């Protein structure tokens, strides 16, 4: 599966050939350096390990720096991609060019944190009326039945921490691949704040 590490830059709009404005998310893909691989004999599966985005040297300890020894400067992100499409060898630099003839991609990122959120925001509960004497506004309502079973089932949807989850958005159309700016533009939104790391993969369900 073809995949690269990128950085969410933000959203904008572009005109397509028919003059329609399309909302796009801009993902910057700096050079992805191949740091190694996993093989069937040694590891029981095949994969490629990629690293991207430069990091200041004083933020890297010896254990991390050692993994980049003789290959490149230490990188901020290191990701393993199972069954990589392309034949790659350690030290290769992969660019946004790899997506030049890809129509759809899946993008994985860490969603924006929402803090401690109530049931309406977190699970889409209906809530109650705001006015006309209603005393039931944004509560979650009943959580269980009566004397049987006399308890709330585990996993019941309630208020709690929301966001900062790993989220994948599938089947995003690739609008443009710009090799000069090192960016890929996909139609629609992707998870996470701007400047956050995302993983762009070829779409699993759509070609």
């Amino acid at each position, binding site marked *: 599966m073809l995949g690269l590490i990128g950085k969410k*830059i*933000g959203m*904008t*709009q*572009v*005109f397509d*050939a*028919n*003059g329609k*404005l399309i909302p796009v998310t*801009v993902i*910057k893909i700096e050079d992805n350096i191949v740091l190694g691989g996993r093989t069937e004999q040694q590891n029981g599966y095949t994969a490629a390990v990629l690293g991207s985005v430069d990091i200041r040297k004083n933020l890297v300890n010896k254990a991390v720096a050692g993994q980049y020894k003789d290959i490149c400067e230490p990188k901020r992100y290191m990701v393993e991609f199972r069954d990589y499409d392309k034949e790659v060898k350690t030290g290769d630099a992969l660019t946004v060019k790899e997506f030049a003839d890809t129509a759809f991609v899946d993008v994985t990122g860490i969603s924006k944190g929402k803090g401690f959120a109530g049931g309406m925001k977190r699970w889409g509960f209906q809530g109650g009326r705001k006015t006309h004497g209603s005393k039931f506004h944004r509560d979650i309502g009943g959580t269980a039945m009566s004397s049987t079973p006399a308890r709330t089932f585990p996993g019941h949807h309630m208020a709690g921490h929301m966001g900062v989850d790993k989220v994948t958005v599938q089947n995003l159309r690739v609008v443009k691949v*710009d090799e000069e*700016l090192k*960016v890929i*533009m996909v139609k629609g939104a992707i998870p996470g704040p701007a400047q956050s790391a995302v993983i762009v993969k070829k779409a699993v369900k759509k070609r």
Partner: protein
Amino acid sequence: MDTIKAIEEQQIKENVTEIHVGDTAKVYFKIVEGATERVQVFEGIIIAINNGGIRKTFVVRKISNGVGVERIFPLHSPRVERIEVVRRGRVRRAKLYYLRDKVGKAAKVPELIKKKQA
């Protein structure tokens, strides 16, 4: 942010006709009907301009068969082929929404006549 600016700048049209609120203008708008393409002209008064970089739009109002018709055009759209200013208008505000409530002569904008520099 700079990357996004660079992307938007690629699409911003250079030398677009200078338009002002109050102008009467002809907008040559490309229309795609299946395989054929033709240019339609929409003539009216520009009653508003909404800035926003690549999203800059302007609103053209005309009276068609006694009914007021307004169209919003994205200035930088490739489908806006060209704009021809027929007549400059003398106006004192940025949005001419008051024209919607006016009928007949009151719904007109006086022409801008520039005095020659002495």
